[in-house]
């Protein structure tokens, strides 16, 4: 299995390490591949969109013509995972306080996402959450995190924090507002590997 990691901006190397550890913990063969261009989207079994600044990533996705191709692939069932900014990019609808929202999401997942919903850097925090089908609580890191406000039919909420959805799945798409790549716990990356195996 080869998991592509979108290498435009953000926590790219952290996801590489996390997937390598997840493969090891599952005792399976697997590799990661950095995805910088349209061509790199070939020969991967799943794609992770890392956290970073969604406005910067979306501008480059469009410039490189990768937005349309990712959209096409995911519509056909290609597995994709978004963390933080990645979740903003996956959303069909964005809520923003800005006069004009410059992030153009890929519009794939039937969720409404609010950017910077938990506040600024100083409001960043860590919190244990109960994720569906996980035995032990999961320590999640929230940094300038967005929030999944609404989900459409066919989207399953996997965990809540104070009545807000923080991780959700819609068939081949997994989205979360926290940063699983910044902790040693590999269960989220393993969950995505399972989705790739399943599809």
């Amino acid at each position, binding site marked *: 299995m080869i998991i592509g990691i979108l290498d435009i901006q953000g926590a*790219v190397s952290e996801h590489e390490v996390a997937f390598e550890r997840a493969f090891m913990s599952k005792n399976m063969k697997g590799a990661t591949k950095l995805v910088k261009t349209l061509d790199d989207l070939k020969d991967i079994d799943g794609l992770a969109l890392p*956290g*970073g*600044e969604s406005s910067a990533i979306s*501008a480059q996705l469009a410039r490189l013509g990768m937005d349309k191709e990712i959209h096409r692939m995911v519509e056909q069932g290609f597995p994709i995972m978004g963390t933080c900014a990645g979740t903003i990019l996956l959303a069909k609808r964005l809520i923003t306080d*800005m006069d004009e929202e*410059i992030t153009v999401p890929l519009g794939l997942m039937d969720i409404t996402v609010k950017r910077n919903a938990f506040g*600024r*850097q100083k409001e960043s925090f860590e919190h244990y959450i109960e994720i569906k089908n996980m035995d032990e609580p999961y320590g999640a890191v929230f940094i300038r995190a967005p929030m999944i406000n609404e989900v459409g039919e066919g989207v399953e909420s996997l965990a809540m924090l104070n009545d807000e959805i923080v991780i959700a799945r819609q068939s081949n798409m997994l989205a979360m507002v926290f940063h699983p790549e910044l902790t040693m716990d590999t269960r989220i990356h393993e969950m995505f590997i399972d989705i790739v195996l399943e599809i």
Partner: protein
Amino acid sequence: MQKGGVIMDVVTAEQARIAEDAGAVAVMSLERVPSDIRAMGGVARAADPTKLQEILDEVSIPVMAKVRIGHFAEARIWESMGADMIDESEVLTPADPYYHIDKSEFTVPFVCGCTYLGEAVRRIAEGAAMIRTKGEAGTGNVVEAVRHMHLVNQMIENLKIIDDEKLDAVAHTYAKPFGKLEMASRQEWCDDETSADEIVFGGRKMADWKADVKAILIEIRDLGRLPVVNFAAGGIATPADASLMMSMGCDGVFVGSGIFKSSDPKKMAKSIADAVTNFEDAKTLTEVSMGLGNAMPGLDIGQIPEDQILQNRGL
């Protein structure tokens, strides 16, 4: 999470808007860009809070703000206002000749400049979450940023081959400046070296600082890089400059005067953002370098009077 992106100096909300639209991953709010600070002389302080507020209200990306080296009161203002990161910067006039801010006392993360590995390690020991080269700000001359990045990279290579005894000696040398005040005060009455048991800074003994410095050096040796992100800053004026710094292993780029002192800031901002993302792709770099108009006026480092060299502040 600014890795792989470009952070742009802005002095107004309008400039912040241009930066965000161009694809900046953060903006740095300040009173004047470095080249204007250089031209005006005098004492450069943290900006008026009103300005930071306008910029915080304008953009959705993180907003950073500069404080003088050692000026923890300025830092408290930015922290209370909700700045996303503080740059303890040599571009402003240093406020403390002996100490940097004890950054471990803040919840807001800090970025600090360095000219070589020892400075980077001291700032990390003090709690910096991000390092950048100092370069020579406001010159539009990339040579000093290149020098600082080379020196950091070279020393990381050296760490891989030295034995524990040498590593200990390096840690001793790198930790020494924490005792600057103690050494200065001792000059008045005796000439002993500061002892390891002496409390020197942040309520901690010299031996504690040395142990921290050594632990960080071991981490750097094992990782083959700094344990925090390391950006390029100081003199970056063109997309090619940005690409050069990224190719040297920087995690991202700060552009100070380079954007809003060029003849077409919008275009320059976008081109530098594109160059950082695609730094290895010569074709893209060529495309985005075309028709940019004039880059900011450049300054030869040799022509700058010694007392106006910013990188020597706060080592």
